[in-house]
């Protein structure tokens, strides 16, 4: 089986599981374009490769399958962030390009993109991005282009690139105060609460919310 097809199927098993589904038929129906000629037989093959376990009509990833699936999902969602927030690519093009990137990005480049974007926790659709080896390490060889407010330089001015909120209504609340991607902010203080300035508006925020706002220095 082609590498792409393997990755596509593993990715679909992973994303289906996120939605709480694990039936083989559903995986097959929802697998993307790169899994040409997909069929039930592919699962047998994946099982033989040690990437998948089958239990009746249900499928589950093995340890190795899990590792590879996470990699694909990670590349896909990071690519979405890169394309949408930094390069301002429209939704349709973003999706098809991300589907390309997920198969072609090397591990090294993936980590660089992740660092560049400030290790974003979610994709633009709000789905979690599986963390990679670069996330959580303190060593930073690459200077990130985008960082969460907690790591942003105090007193510096930045443009909001994206907001990855845990709750959707938070975005609305922030938007009402003018805090949206594209706005220019200055980080004023971090403790006891975050204080940011947008033009003449000063806003105090919980650290938790500040961590969801990603900015690029300008």
């Amino acid at each position, binding site marked *: 089986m082609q590498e792409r097809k393997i990755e596509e199927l593993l990715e679909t098993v992973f994303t289906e599981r996120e939605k709480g589904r694990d039936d083989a038929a559903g995986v097959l129906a929802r697998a993307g374009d790169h899994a040409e000629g997909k069929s039930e037989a592919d699962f047998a093959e994946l099982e033989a490769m040690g990437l998948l376990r089958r239990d009746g009509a249900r499928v589950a990833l093995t340890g190795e399958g899990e590792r590879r699936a996470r990699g694909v999902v990670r590349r896909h969602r990071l690519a979405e962030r890169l394309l949408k927030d930094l390069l301002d690519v429209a939704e349709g093009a973003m999706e098809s390009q991300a589907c390309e990137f997920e198969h072609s990005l090397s591990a090294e480049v993936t980590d660089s993109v992740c660092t560049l974007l400030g290790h974003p926790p979610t994709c633009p659709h709000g789905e979690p991005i599986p963390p990679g080896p670069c996330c959580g390490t303190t060593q930073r060889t690459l200077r990130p282009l985008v960082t969460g407010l907690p790591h942003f330089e105090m007193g510096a001015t930045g443009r909001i690139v994206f907001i990855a909120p845990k709750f959707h209504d*938070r975005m609305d609340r*922030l938007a009402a105060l*003018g805090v*949206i991607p594209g706005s220019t902010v200055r980080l004023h203080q971090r403790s*006891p609460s975050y204080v940011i300035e947008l033009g003449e508006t*000063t*806003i105090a*925020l919980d650290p938790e919310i500040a961590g969801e706002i990603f900015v690029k220095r300008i």
Partner: protein
Amino acid sequence: MTPRAATAPADRLDKQLVPEPRTAILVGNPNVGKSVLFGALTGKYVTVSNYPGTTVEVTRGHATIEGRAWNVMDTPGTNGLTPMSEDEQATRDILLREVGYACLQVCDTKNLRRGLLLTVQLAEAGVPFLLALNMADEAASRGIHVDVEALAKSLGVDVVPTVAVERKGLAQLQAALPAARPSSFAVRYDPAIEEGLAEVVPLLPPGGGLAPRAVALMLLAGDDSLDGRIAGLPAEARERVAEARRRVSARYPESLRFVISKQRLAAVDRLHDAVVTRGARSAGSDFGKRLGAWSTHPIWGVPILAAVLLAAYEFVGVLGARVAVDFMEYKVFYDRLVPWTQAAVRWLVPWQAAQRFLVGPAGVPFREHDGFLVGRYGLFSMGLSYGMAIVLPIVATFFVAFSVLEDSGYLPRLAVMVNKLFKRMGLNGKAVLPMVLGLGCDTMATMTARIMETRKERIIVTLLLALAIPCSAQMAVILAMAASLSPGALAWFGGALLGTLVLVGWLAAKVLPGRGSDFVLELPPLRIPQAGNVAVKTLARIEWYLREALPLFLVGTLLLWGLDRVGGLVVLQRVAAPVVVGVLHLPKEAALAFILGFLRRDYAAAGLFLHYEPFIRAGTLTREMQIQITVALVTLTLFIPCIANFFMIVKERGWKTGLAIAGFIVPFAVGVGATVNVLMRWLY
């Protein structure tokens, strides 16, 4: 252009008569000087506030503009017409419900971007309006220049620069008000959203204060608060609205509401950049800015916080709660008003029996008989003297301090400083307001729990107020008794209260369903409060206290008097005695103190104080007594709040929550008291 006239048919028949008054509605972001402008327009000042959520009530006034009578309404500050809070919903609903009005949008010129975000929504809504660019002087001093003519041309409505506090621009504003008209400015959204709008708009019934396009946008954005409005639509139309919404939202990864705000803000940014130029800023306002920065600084903010709290304590706790209360209670009430009332009743009421009923037998001190007006639990000597002589001086001084803090812009900064502490209790920094107010009067504070955004937070605040925040009436007696305690026993008392506060808050946050609201708070610039504003605001709030809280004190007194008359107090005392003596190891006199405490909080502590006073004076308090006093104080402070507070809880939160809170507090207070008793006997 002729404004939409709010004329009744009768008015059309007799054109010569005085025309019907028109309605003007003031809208604007929070802290833009809307209420000051309202005061300047109507001549009647209303509450101006820096704190989001304080102007919950809509204020109305009258004005004569260009020879015609106007009804002027002031609305709570809002950032948009798709509401995020109760306040914003109130404003939106006013615009939706009223007809034939002229809208006056007030915005902060320094912060035009946010103002314009609301402007374009008013334009979308088709509301006739004009725009006041307030605080024009502050903007100029910061080097912000707005091209007023270009802005007026782009919007198609009148734009008037004003300085409301100096009444500048008021005449131009009044001249332009009758010519308020819908704006020609329109935001174009993505094709997907426009298609959705094209589908929803024809389904909506015409009429109402807001244009169908604006309502359709709110519906697409998933505004649940509009459910009532579309309930009248046929089921098929409702289904099509829902369907259009699903289809459009599927096109975007973010919520549709956010996408709409974002595209609207992009249009605002283009307009803003076209009319605003920024020059060099003058240094004038820098000190205020620096002070503002220090007041939220992790290190410098702490001494500033301490200084503000100390000053507030000296003013409210010492001047209000001691000096003024002593004067009002003894000099005014007990020495003058009470005897005068007695004399007046004896003189006015001829029948002996009625006299006895109202003011008790002659020659007996009023504390020793059960007269209805003047007596131990008399409506006048107890109820009114409590509300007017003890609580009023405290809340009055508190309101002055509160208004000063509010007008200065320090309150939200105070919330920033204490946010972390309150987060542990499932609340956020905003909760500091009702808590501090609770130290003045828990009944009043319970009412202000409204400023919290979610139901869960409101319940936690109400519970903690009733449980662990001693009000000033109680505090005075507690402090007097605490003075006699050893430092060790004092530490036990303080520790038990603080521990309970944090523990119960933390537990309540875990147990109650729902989540806390986010702490996103705008910090207005620091300003020097104006004495006139503080005075009028304080008066308005005192009026509020007299109207809302004072009657509850009277009802409480009435209940107590009735209970005393039918011998209920003795029964209650007998029921409570085993718990007080057996569980808490207190003298049986304390049982009455607890019961009285429910009806009048300071009586409880005062009753105990009298019991121990001889020993305190002689300096012969034993270890046993120290423990007893500590246990009694802890239990009394935690114990059920006064009856006025209980009624207020019921009024604000409903019977179920009120009873649940009471049902939790009574056994819990006794439990904590018993625990402190056991621990102290073992460790102290």
